[in-house]
């Protein structure tokens, strides 16, 4: 009888979305907002915060109602849940972070069409309890937000040479850090769509390279382990043969 697979711990559920199964750089989900709203660090992080709200709460609600929903209406029901949270987050953003609302524009209602959210609802929240679903949603959304923040940081710095804060997110302070004069390099292309594709491509390459490096290292470790076991086995065999030869002598 096959041994049942052990559920990973809550910490593992949370962290898998940040690096190992990062929605943007590994699963390639939610690339539309990742391209469209990452012209600056703040807009990227802002979208990330909104997705944290929507994904966590929709995972909780989907998990709560999963046994009540017949399979035929699973998708429409989940869409209603997600759309509700998106509408709520849209109104709250417009009320309390109007600059962020203006900056993200149509991409806030478009969160409802973000395949990351629906995929977590169907693939995870509909099959797990509330606690694990909430942690999964939170972890995935944080990973998504960090990915958007990283892309936004890269694009903003390459285009302006500085990182502004307090412009779109209502912070009590407003200003900019770094502040290199990179105007002569004329890299404003990075705030445009083309720059978005380039930056995402580069970061995907970096994450793929890290993944390949890690898998190569794992393979090398495995090979070393196999070699070691083989050596140990051969050593044991040799020792056994010597003992048997000594006995007969």
């Amino acid at each position, binding site marked *: 009888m096959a041994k049942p697979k052990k559920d990973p711990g809550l910490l593992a559920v949370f962290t898998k979305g940040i690096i190992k199964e990062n929605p943007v750089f590994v699963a390639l989900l939610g690339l539309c907002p990742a391209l469209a709203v990452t012209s600056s660090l703040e807009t990227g992080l802002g979208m990330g915060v909104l997705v944290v709200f929507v994904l966590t709460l929709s995972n909780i609600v989907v998990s709560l109602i999963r046994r*009540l929903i*017949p399979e035929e209406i699973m998708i429409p*029901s989940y869409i*209603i849940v997600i759309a509700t949270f998106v509408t*709520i987050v849209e*109104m709250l953003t*417009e009320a309390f972070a109007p600059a962020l609302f203006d900056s993200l*524009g*149509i*991409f806030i209602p478009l969160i409802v069409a973000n395949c990351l959210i629906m995929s977590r609802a169907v693939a995870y929240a509909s099959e797990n309890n509330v606690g694990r679903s909430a942690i999964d949603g939170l972890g995935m959304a944080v990973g998504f937000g960090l990915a958007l923040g990283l892309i936004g940081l890269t694009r903003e710095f390459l285009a302006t040479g500085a990182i502004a804060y307090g412009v779109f997110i209502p912070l009590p302070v407003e200003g900019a850090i770094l502040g290199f004069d990179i105007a002569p390099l004329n890299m404003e292309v990075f705030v445009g769509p083309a720059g978005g594709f380039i930056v995402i491509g580069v970061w995907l390459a970096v994450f793929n390279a890290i993944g390949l490096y890690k898998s190569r290292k794992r393979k090398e470790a495995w090979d070393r382990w196999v070699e070691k076991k083989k050596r140990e086995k051969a050593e044991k065999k040799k020792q056994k043969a010597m003992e048997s030869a000594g006995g007969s002598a």
Partner: protein
Amino acid sequence: MLPKLKIALILFVIGAVSGAGIVGVNSFTEDIIEANRLREEHEAYFDIFGLDMPEEFDVDEEPQDVYCRREVKGYDADRETIGEIVFFCVADEDVYERAVAYDKDGNRLGQVFRVDDVNNHGEISTLVAFDGNFEILDVRIVHTTNTPNYVQRIEDDYLGDFAGQDIRDVDFYDGSTGATITYNSIRQAVNLTAANAEADRALDAYRKVYPEADNYERAFDYTLGCIRYRDAVYDIEGNLLGHVYMAQYDDEGHDPIDLVVAVEDETFKDVVVAREDQASETLMDALDKYRDYTGEHVGDIDIAAYDDTVYDSSITHLLEQSFVRCVEDDEQRELREFFRWATRTGEVETIDNDYVESYQPYYDEDDELLGHVYIGEMDTSDLTDDYSGGLLRIKVSIDLDGLIHNAVIEEINESNFANDLLEEEIARYRGMEGPMEEEDVSDAFSSATYSGDALNTIIEAIYAHNGENIEEGE
């Protein structure tokens, strides 16, 4: 059947709970969102004219007069006035509103038109600001749901090109911008502003006579003849400064002339040229001669035709016509309010009717009967026990074909809000041939008060009686 009902019930419950959640959040945020929008918009107005950004605003919640006048004052942290923006509604329905900006000393800085448009990418509200010389100060987007990247591109690359151009002759960017739909909305906003700025030239012309003129109201549109209209001119406080006639002489063989003739209480005040491009030295000299009549009663002025310049006969003609209009207007303004060509009225006949009090026949200069003017009234509090309205009294002119020429409210005892709505409602009757069908009576109005229904009931009663009058006349 039962499983399907269960599915429907589950979907209904999910939808209802979702809807309730959205309604709850909406009721919590809608006031904040509206306040944010207003503040952002007001800040944009101050920023356009280079005023400091106010720390706080005093905002008129409701329009103050018939021009929908609404004032927004900005103050710094020490409560010192930074400037003032005065908003007005615009007759052109495509333009949302017009605003005039003043600095802390009350100097006029310029005007802003706000144009709201809905294009294929969503909503877009644009401000177009220009100074007293029609030079564009700024064009900016204050609210939009258009694609942000396109909007950003327009703001970064194209809006700046408008500044410094003459609003009446704008050089648009003709090439493909990559955001054509958004740019077209901007183009439309600038064009509409230009059209309305031209119309507002009248006010600039009136300021030559009344420097403190801030607004005007069309008192009479003559349609025919060289006197185009008579306007009442008001200062910033809404006080009547006087009346002016806009006179135009554009016969073949003459250079066109647009004059502003100011007359107060049948006394000639001044005559000025309305358009700067017509203000030649010869014309200005010619006009000077007529200023000798300033202060004289228009009936006593014997305008002699000067033969010195080509303008004299034109000016004389325009002044004569203005003076004639002035005398006629004061005598016959009320007559013309109800039938344009009326010159006299007949006896008032009282009627024994619940809703129609009296009527009066109106005649033209050939003594032909034009129609009747009815006075009708109704106590709206009689409509229902739970409504305390009051007397609604209206005056309606109906010609012999049953066409309503004019309908005005004589007396009303409603809230200011209902008064404004009723003014709009009664205006809908002008040009109609009969009372409205029940479903056409403005729903928004009749649900707010009962006076919409009352208005239609009075007009129905008037029509019933007008039919009898026409039959008797025949």
